[in-house]
């Protein structure tokens, strides 16, 4: 019966713990701040709170004597947080790069049911119709700011790869209006390509990924030699592309007069609905119209989710491992301090302050671990460059981004691990019969 009761109690604690952890994960920071303030007030103002503070003070001041075993908690949790934050920062960086790429006031027109730019084709007649649609902004010379573009997945040798190892780069053939449609693109080195020549400008991401992308060098695209005349930077997914004159690209890759997509700058984001409706209602066209922001968000959705899920699964398994490690250490700590704790209880300290004190100690270690892990992830991975195939065709270069939000969620994980790892040893310390604990060695 006694065994059954204690089992039931354990089960109850476990259920409460699980519910608490879920609430913890979902709670926004003001709630948590409120909790922390309430806890601090309790410690300062109530009698049992003051007791807890003094017991915790003793435990924390003797931490240095247990440096070896305490560091296990810290390092274990730091490991979990570092891996978790690193994985999530990869997903975040990927999503961010694509999210930054589009805007709400530029529209992308693709042939109907094309999942990506590269799969679409628009013939010259359609392009002319699209350019005359209402809502498109006009340049100073009165022409619509619409840029028909050719997108090709071109093979190029990878930097640092074997001589015959090719990667795929997104080669974009553009006209003069493309620069006005995307004002964020800046030439950082060299100059723009000249119309009618086999010249390319290279995005800074593509430059990092592929061999021979320096101003003044020649690269082979298609069956022709092209001169690299400039490097551009946009701070988004465009950085992974190579740009050249649309007609030259179309002739090299035998595209004729057709183009893949039309990118149009709208006079105002509000014009999008009218623009889309006008294209949808035109019997001469069969096209899909999206804002570029929406297009790139959709492109990143699946990959971001996969990376995020992997990160959380890996982080969870590691966290479970770390919880057991923390449990182990804290059980050992409680065991070595059993006599001390029992003495405290013998002279009149109640169970709650003892529980709180042990918990506080673990949470402090966890906090330290979380901070170290977050710092490690930030130092090693913030700005770390990776690349993957995106949009079905080309290498997309992106940077890992360790944001404040990620660090915060890492810290939350750390504290949750510390909480679980400290709770059971604390309960044990508070419920062990005083007499047997005093006898313990």
């Amino acid at each position: 019966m006694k065994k059954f009761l204690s089992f039931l109690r354990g089960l109850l604690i476990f259920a409460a713990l699980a519910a608490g952890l879920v609430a913890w994960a979902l709670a926004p920071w003001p709630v948590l701040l409120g909790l922390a303030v309430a806890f601090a007030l309790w410690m300062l103002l109530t009698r049992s709170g003051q007791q807890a503070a003094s017991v915790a003070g003793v435990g924390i001041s003797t931490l240095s004597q247990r440096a070896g075993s305490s560091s296990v908690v810290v390092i274990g949790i730091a490991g979990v947080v570092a891996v978790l934050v690193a994985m999530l920062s990869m997903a975040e960086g990927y999503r961010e790069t694509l999210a930054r790429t589009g805007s709400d006031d530029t529209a992308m027109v693709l042939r109907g049911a094309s999942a990506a730019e590269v799969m679409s084709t628009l013939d010259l007649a359609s392009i002319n119709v699209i350019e005359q649609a209402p809502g498109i902004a006009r340049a100073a010379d009165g022409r619509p700011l619409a840029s028909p573009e050719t997108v090709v997945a071109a093979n190029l040798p990878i930097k640092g790869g074997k001589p015959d190892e090719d990667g795929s780069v997104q080669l974009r053939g553009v006209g003069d209006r493309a620069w006005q449609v995307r004002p964020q693109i800046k030439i950082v080195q060299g100059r723009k390509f000249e119309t009618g020549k086999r010249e390319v400008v290279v995005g800074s991401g593509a430059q990092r990924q592929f061999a021979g992308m320096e101003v003044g060098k020649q690269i082979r695209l298609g069956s022709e030699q092209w001169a690299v005349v400039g490097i551009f930077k946009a701070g988004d997914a465009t950085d992974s592309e190579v740009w050249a004159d649309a007609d030259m690209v179309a002739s090299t890759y035998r595209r004729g007069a057709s183009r893949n997509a039309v990118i149009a700058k709208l006079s105002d984001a509000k014009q999008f609905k009218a623009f889309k409706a006008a294209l949808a209602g035109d019997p001469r066209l069969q096209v899909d119209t999206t804002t570029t922001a929406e297009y790139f968000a959709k492109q990143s959705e699946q990959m971001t989710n996969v990376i995020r899920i992997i990160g959380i699964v890996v982080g969870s398994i590691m966290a479970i491992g770390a919880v057991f490690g923390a449990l182990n250490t804290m059980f050992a700590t409680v065991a070595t301090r059993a006599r001390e704790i029992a003495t405290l209880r013998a002279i009149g300290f109640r169970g709650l302050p003892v529980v709180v004190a042990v918990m506080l100690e673990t949470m402090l270690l966890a906090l330290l671990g979380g901070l170290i892990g977050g710092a490690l992830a930030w130092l090693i991975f913030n700005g770390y460059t990776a690349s993957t195939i995106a949009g079905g065709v080309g290498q997309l270069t992106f940077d890992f981004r360790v944001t404040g939000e990620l660090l915060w969620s890492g810290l939350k994980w750390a504290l949750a691990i510390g909480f679980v790892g400290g709770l059971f040893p604390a309960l044990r310390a508070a419920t062990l019969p005083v007499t047997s604990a005093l006898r313990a060695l």
Partner: protein
Amino acid sequence: MKYFHLIWAELMRRKTRTALTLLSIIAAFLLFGLLDGVRESFEQAGNSANGVKRLQTGSRLSFIQPLPMSLNERIAQVPGVKQVTYANWFGGAYQDPHNQIFSFGVADNYLDLYPEMAVSAAHRKAFAATRTGVLVGEGLMKRFNWKVGQKLPLQSTIFTSSDGSKNWSFDIVGTLAATDKKSGGWFDQMILLHWKYFDDSTPYNRGQVGWYVTEVKDASQSDRVAKAIDAISANSDHETKTQTEAAATASWMKQMADIGLIVGSIMGAVFFTLVLLTGNTMAQAVRERTSELAVLKTIGFPDRSVLMLVLAESVLLLLLGGVIGVALADGLGPIVNAGSNGAINVPRIGWHSWSVALMLMVGIGLLVGLLPAIRAMRLNIVDALAGR
């Protein structure tokens, strides 16, 4: 082995602690199992015996650039070529253009070159006889609850059909199964349709081919044959690039992401944490047992035996946890796959991963046991018994 009961008794001395340590180890090796499985499947992709014998010929310009049909005859005449087939992207999607499915239009003899895809004789016959027929991977059939015999509406994200829309209709005539369940995830998720039907129906293709697949008679001749194939169209407007399937897959995988690096760094972090946790536990266990070890020495156990006892204990602990962890990963993989609806494909754990895992278990066991074991070996009996 005659001291096994001693080691076991040592482990059972503090059941909670042993259990908790064991659980940390299990968690670590569970991760190892899952991650190494993924790394392994990336490494093994296309690396089968067949993958070395098959050459892929695509356009040198870009993998989406088609090649002329006329190459088929000319490749078949290259000495050393056993047979040649071709395929084309179809870009199929089900219900939503973003719900893309690997789908290819293939030549009639395509299946002859891929013994990894098992198709029953009846299904194969039905496929050959039905112009609009498709063979669907078993994984896909399950994922969307399709049945053999039903009509299958697909959108193509690239090609229009004969009526000018992107909507195509096929008949499911059979299923594809991967003969090798371990690395066959890819074949389970594929749809094959007739290249001929595709080419006739779409106004855009006009007798062009996405890529050729060539089987060579002798794998050692692959390089020469690949060069000979590329020589056919050298300096034309459709230059080709031919490489073995293994090499092609490897370079493709490499572009997806630097999987090895990411998996490696995660694993590094996991094991660093693990070594630390277990090492600490072992140190604690030995510290607690100081007097017992002294008794052992007093009754005549030589120093070396004490060292071995402690080492064996830590290795046993790691082996126990590690084997459970990897076995768990093996069992969990299929569940993850089913849960992710084909988005993630964790393969079964092969003997290679197992052997690496076993080596790691023994290695880490020795590593973390070493310091406590040396400490135990150097124990001074008198001091230890006096509790100093």
